[in-house]
């Protein structure tokens, strides 16, 4: 099962997110993540959707999305030259004996400590999905208290010539 990334430019109106999500659920497509935010044009938002499925399934998804009146443009970024990022906030157990190890791990990944507690720290890391997943896997043995992840956002690289 491949992961496919779609970037959709949609009208910035209430109900559009519900419509897109509803489309996916009604047709049984599995969404891994969906991130949406404003763009340079206040009329439009950009949605980055990561879905799991084969190419034929993705092609249907892309066409169904395109059909929605509120969706202006859909790009399949799966095979495009692109930059993608995922942001993770995670609270990790870091009692006095272990704290320095946790912080060192964070530094290795160029992640930041953004909150400190008696026995925990909160770490923020931005990067590709692989990088974020790698740090998470390494932090897991210490005990993850809670985490929040944005899901991937992506933009196509500019052409260079």
């Amino acid at each position, binding site marked *: 099962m491949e992961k496919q990334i779609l970037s959709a430019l949609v*009208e910035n109106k209430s109900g559009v997110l519900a419509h897109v999500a509803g489309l996916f659920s009604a047709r049984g497509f599995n969404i891994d993540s969906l991130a949406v935010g404003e763009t340079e044009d206040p009329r439009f938002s950009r949605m980055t959707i990561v879905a799991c499925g084969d190419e034929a399934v993705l092609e249907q998804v892309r066409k169904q999305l395109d059909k929605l009146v509120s969706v202006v443009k859909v790009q399949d970024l799966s095979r495009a030259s692109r930059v993608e990022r995922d942001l993770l906030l995670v609270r990790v157990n870091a009692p006095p004996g272990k704290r320095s190890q946790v912080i060192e791990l964070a530094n290795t990944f160029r992640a930041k400590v953004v909150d400190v507690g008696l026995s925990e720290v909160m770490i923020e890391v931005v990067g590709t999905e692989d990088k974020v997943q790698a740090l998470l896997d390494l932090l897991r043995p210490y005990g993850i208290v809670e985490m929040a992840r944005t899901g991937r956002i992506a933009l196509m690289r500019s052409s260079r010539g």
Partner: protein
Amino acid sequence: MGKNGAEILIDALIAEGVETIFALPGGVVIPLFDRLYDCPLKVVLVRHEQGAGHMADGYARASGKVGVCLTTSGPGATNLTTALATAYMDSIPIVAITGQVRTNLIGNDAFQEADITGITRPVTKHNYLLRDVKDLARTVKEAFHIASTGCPGPVLIDLPVDVTTSVLDGEVNNEMQLPGYRIIVKGHPGQIKKAAQAINDSERPVLYAGGGVIISGAAEELAKLARKANLPVTTTLMGLGCFPEDDPLSLHMLGMHGTVYANYAVTQCDLLIAVGARFDDRVTGKLDAFAPKARIVHIDVSPASIGKIVTADIPVVGDAKQVLGQLLKLVEQRERKGWLEQIAQWKREFPLSYDRQAKTVKPQFVVEQVREVSDGDTIVVTDVGQCQMWAAQYYGYSKPRTFLSSGGLGTMGYGLPAAIGAQFACPDKTVFVIAGDGSLQMNIQEFSTAVGNKLPIKIALLDNGYLGMVRQWQELFFNRRYSSTYLADQNPDFVKVAEAYGAIGMRVEAKDGVRPALEAAMQVSDKPVLIDFRIDPEENVFPMVPAGEAIDRMLSRMA
């Protein structure tokens, strides 16, 4: 003083060419109905909002225009849901306007509040919740545009009561803002050329035409193309009427209850040209056995339909009328004697049949007799189930927009209200409903609307005392265990019901009573006529392709 929302709405509807709206009032739309009281629009009062929705649908199918219905908030709006889903599945242009509670109450579980835009999102092409009167004119214009173009569909506008009463400060601005809505009309010339080449090269082609041909107004182009290149034509349920069924090239309907010769032709063809059809499961049966020897040309206005069910070897995205017109110039005349002879042989060997010698009233006979008393412009509206299939098989449709039926959703209760809508759209045409005793009861209250408006609709009730189609499956596949399908001992006296509403009721229990009853019905011009035909209770629809079977492995009457 400027205009208020209600006035702007009515002006906008009139500007779109609306003449008739189907409606039921309620609390939040009282200010709007006050403006409707003496406006030029004809407002048809219905008895159930689902009826209003189906009337707008029948109006649209019969006329080609956008049908309009108007309801109040809460239950009035939710009652439209089935009708919207019906229109959505069959791509019918409707604009549904629902009242809504005041903008500042939305989301507070107010009296008669429903999140109708949320509820109908999956069953409308698009919907709007208006919050400001300055958006009203633009929204109406957009709604009509979206409903009627590309692949048409229902559009809902949710209108809060305070928007209808607020006065617009400034000029009415109805400039559309639809950055995300594009329609592809002209087919790609390269693809069309490939399709023409494929047709010219094929030995055993079949043209598979669906509802899209009717929506596009492409019947003439289709007929010319079929006749020039000698392409046998089969239609879906939704496509009935797009090609004259008395033409020797007509294979009639294909699929689950289609003719043997249509299904055989599709299974043996080497090129399947699909136009305005979507390879629905009622047509394809077992997918990997569908048209197994054929290359597939798929012409459709909706890119999302292409490649959804079946891979198209030559996809052409575009409007049917345009694409067929282009194809017509490029295809060559060919006789295809061998193929046409094979098809003629199948037609001789496997015609549609029923026991014509039977003494009982056979539903197929009734449908044939309806055809005998009608003219080519008569509109047949069906309900759903066995009655629908017999109407599709035994009438013989020659013109587009003469067969109205809920194909995609299969909504029982569609017939009577849709017929009312069709009669309003075409006041000079004869309108027949072919219904079952189960279906007719689902929107029977609309007899009031028909009688009140003096509509001379003829209702041929194929009364077998069962939920017939389900009973048939129970007979064939569940050992005749008629679980919850027997209606006869609880059915009312339909003649008395018709008379109670002010319509004319007749009962026919013998074969020789069928034709006289129909002829008598044709004489009535100012009220509906219901004819309760007591048909053979266990008559089945054949041929039948069992679910999941290949379409050339149908059950026929002999089974």
